[in-house]
């Protein structure tokens, strides 16, 4: 079977890989590129553990072929912290103990970052709907929602202080 050569951008870096036509972007990230921060939960788009953004759009990487990433810009959990400095969402997830086993966490963080980029001041209801496609079987969600809302408040405060 002939492999497909793909050139894409991942977390700002130009990246090339070979993939089989049926490989999902999730397969490529985890198995080919060894970027295992993105998790596989269901593999059918129900759980959101494999969330990434593609050209700024939040998607499940299990519902997209690796070949489709040609010429796109992909952002994964590995691109979230700035070196050793955690993203505010990551800091707040730790503060609020918004994780237990951690399998859903990268997906929640990527999805929540995408929400706050579009809506810096979401209501609790908007946050819960935005994250409805991210399943967590440990926390019961409340700590996650509080961590996201707390991050949003802090980022707004920092922005107004800087202005």
């Amino acid at each position: 079977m002939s492999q497909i050569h793909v050139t894409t951008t991942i977390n700002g870096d130009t990246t090339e890989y070979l993939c089989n036509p049926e490989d999902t972007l999730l397969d490529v990230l985890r198995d080919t590129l060894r970027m295992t921060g993105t998790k596989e939960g269901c593999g059918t788009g129900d759980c959101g553990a494999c969330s990434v953004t593609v050209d700024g759009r939040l998607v499940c990487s299990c519902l997209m072929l690796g070949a489709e990433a040609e010429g796109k810009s992909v952002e994964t959990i590995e691109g979230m912290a700035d070196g050793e400095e955690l993203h505010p969402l990551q800091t707040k997830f730790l503060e609020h103990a918004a994780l237990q086993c951690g399998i859903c966490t990268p997906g929640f963080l990527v999805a929540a970052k995408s929400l706050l980029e579009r809506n810096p001041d979401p209501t609790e209801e908007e946050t819960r709907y935005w994250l409805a496609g991210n399943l967590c079987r440990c926390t019961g969600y409340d700590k996650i929602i509080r961590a996201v809302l707390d991050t949003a408040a802090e980022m707004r405060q920092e922005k107004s202080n800087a202005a």
Partner: protein
Amino acid sequence: MRYEAPETTADAVALLTGEQGIARVLAGGTDLLVQLKSGRLEPDLVVDVKKIDAMRSITAEDGGFRIGAGVSSAEMSEHDGLCAMWPGVVEAAALIGSTQVQGRATMVGNLCNASPAADSVPAMVAAGATIRIVGPNGSRDIPVENLNSGPGKTTLAKGELVESVYLPARPAGSSDAYLRFIPRTEMDIAVVGVGVSLTLDGSGTCTAARVGLGAVAPTVLLVEDAAKALIGTKCDEAALDAAAAACSAAANPIDDKRGTVDYRIKVAGVLTRRAAAIARDRAEANA
């Protein structure tokens, strides 16, 4: 499996026509990739249509909007003109799956997957949408309700694909609405879905209406009796009751884990009534 991403519809048609084995079109992929994963489908060829310009855009046309087969629900929700003219169609597309799924899922994919419970389809049927089919013998436009012949079955011939869906222009005093019932608040498949589109004249009398009913028959239904119950009325309580009764009468559902036959027949009426009232109120605001 081969993967191809042609840049023109003609090239996509040539690929689909030339494939001897099983060929599938990839738009958003939110149904197709699940079928690949499960092993239920093992295609020889997948044709990704998202590099085709005509399938990537929402364009104003003759006072309405043409939406390409590769346009996601999320892109529709962000289009102000479309949201103003066809709020019911947009809200239906925005109910499909999660935020992640809406970033990829398309209305044409939702239609061609041919699930009787597809959320965007009753809204498109109510809207009087037409689809543009392109194939080896050229292109043709047909009403959206004529595409599917049963669960998972379309009437597309070999080599044909749907390039776009067209939502027509609307007179003043028009609007639409879509409601579905699911046992939870998000992320589920419709027990019943109802789309209503209508036009009111200056006195508030309904001059045109269409009602699409989903998840209660092998294909989404255009319920003409429900439209007749609204046309010529002020969409008052009696007219809403009559439209509801018409949809309950048209429903021919199955029992499954999401709802029984009796329950679905009842809910078909309740949702018709509520969706018609929302469409009426929106139309009044547009008068």
